[in-house]
């Protein structure tokens, strides 16, 4: 049976922990370590915070895309006219 993971191992597994990708056993050992180690608790919390912040940055960026879409549709139509042999729908 493997001993409790070290702080270093916690740091290495933290990303998978946040994505719920550890095995049940690894997850249990991970949480056990967190219960006893204030530094790792802080570290894992901060990593989760980092991920949430990236999501926040992305949601702020989502505004500008609308006129691009019309431009792409026009581009696609032009391409389809130029190569009618690819017309599907059989």
């Amino acid at each position, binding site marked *: 049976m493997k001993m409790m993971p070290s*702080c270093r191992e916690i740091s290495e597994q933290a*990303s998978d922990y946040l994505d719920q990708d550890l095995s049940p056993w690894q997850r249990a050992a991970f949480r056990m370590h967190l219960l006893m180690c204030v*530094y790792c608790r802080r570290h894992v919390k901060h990593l989760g915070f*980092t*991920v949430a912040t*990236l*999501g*926040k940055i992305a949601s702020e*960026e989502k505004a500008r895309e609308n006129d691009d879409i019309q431009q792409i549709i026009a581009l696609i139509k032009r391409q389809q006219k130029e190569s009618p042999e690819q017309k*599907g729908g059989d």
Partner: protein
Amino acid sequence: MNQQLPSDNELIPRLLAHDETAYTQVVSAYHGLMVHLARAIVGPAIADEVAQAAWLAVIRALPRFERRSSLKTWVLRIVSNTAKTRLRHESRTVSLEDTQGDQTSINAGQFNASGRWASPPTVWHADTPDDLLASQELRACIDTALRALSPLQRAALTLRDMQGLDMESICKVLEVSESNGRVLLHRARHRIHAAIEEFYQQ
């Protein structure tokens, strides 16, 4: 903007028949995501151009699409490949991969020989992402750290944490193994985390 997109089964025949409504739905649903992915790999200057080129490649290849993945994953893989090819042309010296050492070396200095914290993590003076992003300086640090990632790390991080794709799709899109995908994401997250940590240490 994201109205309900019809299923692939419904969409693909309509796309092949050049149905404009179907194209508008697909472009509305995927174009933003495509630009974000292109930007992660080739940078902002030519991301729009790469996304456009990818659409043309999508139109050309669609009759041969074998549907071993979802349309979305397939389209994003075309973006990824278009962007990678473009990057190789632009600068032969740039590596897609991480050149800054392996996974474990990222945090090596933070731990002592027995694997405990050598110096404890700094306390961050922020309780929400909004608090954190309120500081222009910190935001600039995060942007710098994002730019310093390798193209594939940035792509994995963008797709997972900024666009919310699942890991299996991301690995198909980037054409990396499941374990490599995880390593890319792990390293990228730790580098951004380290940039914020450094900011609070000052």
